[in-house]
């Protein structure tokens, strides 16, 4: 049984059936990619996993517990971290402060009215944040306002923020979308490194086949709101149904 | 029954004033994405266009009438308007009498000019600034504008009557088979209502059926794409600002016979019109109009004696109460789009 079990999930928006009947199981400590053409329902599925949307039917179990109806912050506290398509960071805050926030959230929970502690004197948190920044090779940038980072660094920061929480499941929503090739490769390397060094499950939604095939251990292909096929990358590459439904339409995707 | 018909009538009339102001605010917000707290001031300036024109028409030469005395016992100075000299007293009187409707012609170019000047001179620099900054700078501008008007026209309300032809009221009751004197309504308010309806309809028609309007609507939806098409959307938006100013100004001109204008009438309407816009849904033109009429009618019902005996003080808070309820049940107002002004 996988760490994340999605059973019979369906979601309608008015007349549009965004998700039909999705079944998905993600094995612990694997990298699982979800691919599919535009409008296949990838983002809707992701939003159902993190609490942004509530599916009309079916169930989503994380580590044996249902996440349905929980708020995003509650799901995060269970151990699911999400990386957005465009990096979502705290632009007004310094890089170090950005990193401290998830550390606080991990240690102190969803709400702690600790208004009388000087945050910089909380050595545990500061050290933890500095440590993660070091891992991300961003130590020398920790006093910069996050908004002034390059796109690639923002992505690194965001991934670092998620990792600092030591999540059991890391969800990545097209992590290299809109990136230059060099940045994309850097990100792939970073993710590979994460995969190798940590015990972590990664689910990745991606358009870029290069990314998918460099990282994924299993791939689910989504089309018109239903999973078409699920298999290893090698099998997917040659799968006729996939070519028809997906690769056929986006010839330059790979 | 009669009481209810009467309050619906009242509400429609009140609502037409709200709707006109809210329409202008929404035009500016929808096209330019700017929250204009000086919009009430534009309404007020419109009203003062009417005051100014009636003063210009009444510019007089002074003659001394020895047969009468003034309060100090000196010979009375009598003002004779120049229009009497030019057109004779009868025609002159008619012109003075019709000053308010004439002001419409006078106000349109002035308001458009003020609007364009405001956009080019000030608002333009605030497109990329946070909404809070826009609110604050236009609020500052509103204070400045109203103080300037106060400096020249004083703080007291200035009577600006409607033409004599519109004095008195129309007896709906008698016309539709109720008892006479029960459902009466002043002619000028009927004029105001029709005027508002025409303005609202023309703004909608303009946006719907002209190329200019279509481009502007497209720009409201997606500014960058329209700009990529090589259309100079900025100039059109400037004109839209002028148009919104003119709508506010005309609402002000026609309002003068209903309430004598004073320098702070804009501020009196400002909070209310923002409530209307937000209840309607930020950026939605039909929403603004709908909310204007809705709040006008609800306000009228809340002022009924029968209602007030049960809920004293309801008339004090009805607008705000409705705003709270609507915003809590419909998060983006009646017809608002998602993601507008929520940051």
């Amino acid at each position, binding site marked *: 049984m996988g760490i994340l079990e999605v059973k019979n999930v369906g979601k309608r928006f008015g007349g549009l059936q965004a998700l039909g009947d999705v079944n998905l199981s993600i094995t612990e400590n694997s990298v699982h990619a979800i691919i599919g053409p535009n409008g296949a329902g990838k983002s809707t599925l992701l939003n159902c996993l993190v609490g942004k949307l509530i599916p009309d039917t079916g169930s989503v179990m994380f580590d044996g517990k249902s996440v349905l109806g929980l708020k995003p912050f509650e799901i995060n506290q269970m151990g699911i971290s999400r990386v957005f398509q465009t990096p979502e960071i705290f632009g007004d805050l310094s890089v170090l402060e950005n990193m401290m926030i998830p550390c606080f959230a991990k240690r102190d929970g969803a709400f702690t009215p600790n208004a009388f502690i000087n945050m910089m004197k909380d050595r545990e948190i500061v050290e933890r944040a500095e440590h993660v920044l070091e891992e991300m090779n961003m130590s020398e940038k920790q006093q910069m306002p996050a908004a002034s980072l390059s796109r690639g660094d923002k992505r690194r920061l965001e991934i670092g923020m998620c990792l600092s929480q030591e999540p059991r499941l890391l969800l990545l929503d097209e992590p290299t979308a809109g990136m230059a090739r060099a940045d994309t490769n850097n990100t792939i390397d970073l993710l590979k490194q994460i995969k190798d060094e940590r015990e972590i499950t990664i689910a990745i939604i991606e358009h870029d086949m290069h990314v998918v095939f460099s990282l994924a251990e299993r791939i689910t292909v989504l089309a018109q709101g239903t999973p078409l096929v699920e298999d290893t990358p090698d099998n997917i590459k040659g799968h006729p149904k996939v070519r028809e439904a997906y690769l056929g339409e986006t010839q330059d995707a790979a | 029954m009669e009481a209810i018909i009467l309050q619906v009538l009242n509400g429609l009339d009140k609502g037409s004033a709200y709707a006109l102001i809210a329409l202008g605010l929404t035009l500016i917000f929808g096209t330019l994405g700017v929250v204009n707290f000086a919009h009430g001031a534009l309404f007020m300036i419109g009203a003062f266009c009417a005051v100014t024109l009636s003063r210009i028409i009444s510019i007089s030469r002074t003659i001394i009438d020895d047969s009468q005395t003034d309060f100090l016992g000196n010979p009375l100075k009598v003002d004779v308007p120049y229009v009497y000299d030019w057109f004779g007293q009868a025609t002159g009187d008619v012109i003075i009498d019709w000053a308010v409707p004439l002001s419409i012609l006078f106000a349109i170019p002035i308001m458009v000019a003020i609007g364009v000047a405001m956009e080019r001179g000030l608002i333009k620099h605030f497109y990329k600034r946070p909404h809070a900054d826009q609110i604050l700078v236009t609020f500052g501008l509103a204070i400045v504008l109203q103080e300037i008007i106060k400096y020249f026209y004083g703080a007291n309300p200035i*009577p600006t009557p409607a033409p004599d032809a519109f*004095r008195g009221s129309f007896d709906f009751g008698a016309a539709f088979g109720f008892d006479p004197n029960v459902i009466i309504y002043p002619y000028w308010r009927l004029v105001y209502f029709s005027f508002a309806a025409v303005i609202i309809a023309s703004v909608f028609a303009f946006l719907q059926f002209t190329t200019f309007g279509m481009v502007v609507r497209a720009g409201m939806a997606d500014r960058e794409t329209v700009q990529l098409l090589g259309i100079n959307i900025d100039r059109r938006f400037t004109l839209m600002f002028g148009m919104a100013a003119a709508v506010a100004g005309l609402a002000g001109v026609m309002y003068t016979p*209903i*309430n*004598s204008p004073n320098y702070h009438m804009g501020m009196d309407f400002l909070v209310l019109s923002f409530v209307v816009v937000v209840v309607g849904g930020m950026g939605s033109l039909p929403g603004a109009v709908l909310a204007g009429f809705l709040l006008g009618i609800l306000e009228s019902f809340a002022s*009924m004696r029968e209602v007030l005996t049960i809920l004293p003080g309801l008339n004090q808070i009805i607008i705000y109460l409705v705003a709270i309820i609507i915003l809590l049940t419909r998060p983006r107002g009646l017809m608002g789009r998602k993601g507008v002004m929520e940051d």
Partner: protein
Amino acid sequence: MSKINLTRRSVLQTGAITGAGLALPTYLSAASHSGFTNAPTGDTVTLGFNVPQTGPYADEGADELRAYKLAVDHLNGGGDGGLMNTFSSKALQGNGILGKKVEFVTGDTQTKSDAARASARSMIEKDGAVMITGGSSSGVAVAVQALCQEAGIIFMAGLTHSNDTTGKDKKANGFRHFFNSYMSGAALAPILADNYGKDRKAYHLTADYNWGYTTEEAVRTSTEAMGWETVAAVKTPLTQTDFSSYIAPVLQSGADVLVLNHYGGNMVNSLTNAVQFGLREKQVNGKNFEIIVPLYSRLMAKGAGANVKGIFGSANWHWSLQDEGSKAFVKSFGTKYGFPPSQAAHTTYVQTLLYADAVERAGSFNPCAVGEALSDFQFDGMGNGPTLYRGADHQCFKDVLVVKGKENPTSEFDLLEIVEITPTSQVTYDASIFGGELGACNPGA
């Protein structure tokens, strides 16, 4: 022109020990030896004129300020002396007050009690004013009066019409020359009965705050005593601008008189709206429909324009009065400013003179001495006939004017005509009916 505006402190300085610290714990910076707040020690005395200079009553405030300046001018021996010539008390010499030249400071009340108190406190604490006067609303008058009581300063109220000022909120250090709601009702009722008959049905629209309540109460009580019936009374919010939804149901109610217990902008708008609805052309119960505005102000009537024609109301004073006092005041004011004074100007001018006169007669600026001199003081020649400053509540009792909007005004100032001068006896009431406690006078320090 250069007027030197010395303050009390500059006066202190002249006789002060240079360099060394003269330190005295005091309340609101009083000069300790005199025994009362802000005792003038040099050859000048400072008065505080606290009027609305911004906000809807700014024009009224400006007129009050004109009157104050005129009064100061007259007290210091300038101009034609104005009402000092007709005033029954001859204590004032035109050489300032007690030989001290009168100086003044001005402030802006904004018609808000907080701002009015801030401004009054700055006059007391910073400028050393020994008397504060002014105001254009009862909220402000009551608030500033309470402050002056606390600080040990005399407060000479300006335009305030609520019963509360000298009723439930009266204070020993506060004095009001202006009339009140009760007097308006008492003066109006008989005239209304004479003109409109005793069988009338009245519909009240009342501003929803203290002044509105007391005015409605006063007019209701006195008209009902004449045989009128009150059909309904509806409260309207202060912030209302369009009164149509309140006016439209009036005809349905079977009422044949509409009483607008509104003041200022409310009055202008509600009256304009009522006339627009053509109420005055209607016939109800076989009678002409009538509108009444209990408290008239000429400045505000101007805002309503032709709509005031033929509408009854009451006033404290009007420039067309023909007694010697009124004529003298209109002449002084009109000569200096070019137009006739408003009733707000009149009451503030008279208050200033009354204060100065009381100081002269008491021989001291001490508020308690001044208060005593004003209490139960009877005078004449100030434009309202023989007048009594009643000691029990510090309210002036004098003739009240019933006025009517003029049908054919000859100028923009000639809007009202006097219908009746109601004699004092008819508007006098027992000092205890409104409750409240005058307390003892407070000299501060």
